[in-house]
């Protein structure tokens, strides 16, 4: 009797162990089979390549700091925040996807006070959709991930709210839902999901609009101050502008390779 119980426990224990390891083994196999990427690389998920919508090898954004005025900036912010159900919270626990900052805050190590127009002049800041995103590197659940076209996305259903990505982001581009955001949204747009408390969110380069063949909201209302296009296409408009105008990116010394370029 004692022997059989012992045997049963042994088998049951091994079975539980094996079962608990299954998801992990499946994941490693999937990694090996689908791509050459190693376990230590930032997780990359596929972006839609076929069918309708806009596609690119690497999406980037250009912001013309000279064309932006406070009025245009506000239009861009409103267009983004209204259409993405970003709650309007007044405290320091607020949510921002795109917002205006003085130049000396945006480029703390690249500005001096005698530039034309001074450094109090504002420009727009948002997620840089870095080529080497530190947020993706640190996320313990792959809730934030990078698409092959460079867009850094959020899975609001997988995020555990550890806020490691917020500590890792060198641009302060991420916001956390400290509270339930829904009471703070005036007129929720049914086309875009609202979020719950306890998850991180940020700009996603309007991936939902790209899928419909449309440009991001902010670009659309920016009166030509913002551009969006494919860095890998030499014939693209953004490549032509980059070749003809002087541009800088935020904190280039960190090696994150931002996908948002500022025309000076």
């Amino acid at each position, binding site marked *: 009797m004692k022997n059989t119980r012992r045997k049963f426990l042994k088998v049951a224990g091994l079975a539980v162990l094996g079962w608990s390891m299954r*998801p*992990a083994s499946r*994941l490693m196999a999937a990694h090996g089979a689908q791509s050459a990427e190693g*376990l*230590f*690389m*930032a*997780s990359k998920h596929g972006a839609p390549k076929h069918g309708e919508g806009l596609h690119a090898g690497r999406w980037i954004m250009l912001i013309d700091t000279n064309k932006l005025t406070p009025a245009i900036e506000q239009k861009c912010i409103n267009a983004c925040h209204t259409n993405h159900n970003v709650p309007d919270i007044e*405290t*320091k*626990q*607020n*949510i*921002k996807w795109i917002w205006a*900052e003085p130049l*000396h*805050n*945006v480029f*703390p*190590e690249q500005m001096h006070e005698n530039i034309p127009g001074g450094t109090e002049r504002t420009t727009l*800041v948002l997620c840089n959709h870095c080529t080497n995103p*530190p947020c993706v*590197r*640190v*996320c*313990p*659940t*792959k*809730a934030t991930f990078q698409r092959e076209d460079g867009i850094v996305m959020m899975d609001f259903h*997988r*995020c*555990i*709210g*550890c*806020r*490691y990505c*917020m*500590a*890792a*982001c*060198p*641009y*302060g581009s991420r*916001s*956390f*839902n*400290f*509270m*339930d955001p829904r009471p703070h949204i005036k007129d929720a747009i049914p086309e875009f999901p609202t979020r*719950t*408390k*306890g*998850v*991180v969110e940020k700009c996603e380069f309007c991936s939902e609009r790209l899928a419909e063949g449309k440009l991001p909201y902010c670009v659309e209302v920016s009166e030509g101050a913002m551009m969006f296009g494919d860095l890998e296409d030499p014939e693209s408009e953004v490549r032509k502008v980059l070749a003809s105008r002087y541009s800088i990116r935020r*904190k280039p010394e*960190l*090696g*994150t390779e931002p996908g948002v370029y500022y025309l000076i």
Partner: protein
Amino acid sequence: MLEKVLKGNKVYWGWLAILLALMAVGAVCYGKQLVNGLTITGMSRDVSWGFYIAQFTFLVGVAASAVMMVIPKYLHDYKAYGKILIFGEFNAVAMVCLCLMFIIADLGSPQRLMNIIIHPTPNSMLFWDMIVLNGYLLINIFVGWITLQAYRKEVAPPQWIKFFIYLSIPWAVSIHTVTAFLYCGLPGRGYWMDAILASRFLASAFAAGPAFLIILLYIVKATTSFDPGKEALKSLGKTIAYAMSINLFLVLCEVFTVNYSNIPSHLHHWHYLFFGDGVLVPWMWTSMSMCFVGVLILIVPSNRESDNMLIFGCLFVFIGAWIDKGLGMIGGGFVPNALMEITEYVPTQLELGVALGIYAAGFLILTMLTKIAVGVKLEVGE
């Protein structure tokens, strides 16, 4: 051995009752946090980690300190630690439990905690922290229990347990190293971006941890008839003096590098912590002074002979290290933020209530484990 927990005098039960009451307070506060979200804390978009993560960081160090007795005992056959080693191991168990509770308290969506295991992500340091912390917890439960059981039966512990004892040495180093790696691998956080952060963490841990143990053992001595032995306490005091000296030296190395190089992204954090108008300035000066005074007390051999001076030295070192890591390390890292703006962080009452409840739970575990250890020691007759 568990039955030892069920027998105790009025002081023991009174203490447990106090801890349970504090846990109830913490549970109520945490309930509010679950309903309303982390908005009940003082954290913000700019300072997105606060008191919880800071306590976790500090307590990892207190947990790792058991190794400061394991090394002399098992690698150098220093017998004085044989009597009290079990308290270090059980203390590690309680401290790692505290760490895990603080991490869970800090999660915005704790109901998804298992996503870390369901979607394992080795490029995240948090994944490795989960592994080393849980591993260290298991090793210490295992080693502590087996050796205490052998001691109770008055037989030598089984030979194979040596493997786990030796394993616990690098493992103890790993828990604090990985915890430092959580911070020092982040681009754009000048205060943490520092190769000696892990060594600094270890040095201050090997001071604060043994300091806590000495205080714990004096409490055990005062409340029971168990005598930890003066020799062991004096030696631990010596360890603290050396470890804290190394920690202060490493801090000075950073102060030099940051100030002489004059790189703003690193300098601003130090300026905020020590010279600005920030809330942490008086705390940081207090911390540094207490660590310094603690070393001055403990470095003098005759002070380590005196019970009172030893306790005082330990209190100074422990509180100094707690302020440095439990308040300054996280606050200083996030302020100023990525855009060089200053957003102050002060924990709220509810946040402190949750932390109080967690501490009470940790101390409940520590009390019960210590009770078992003392009970067995007295039963065998030391």
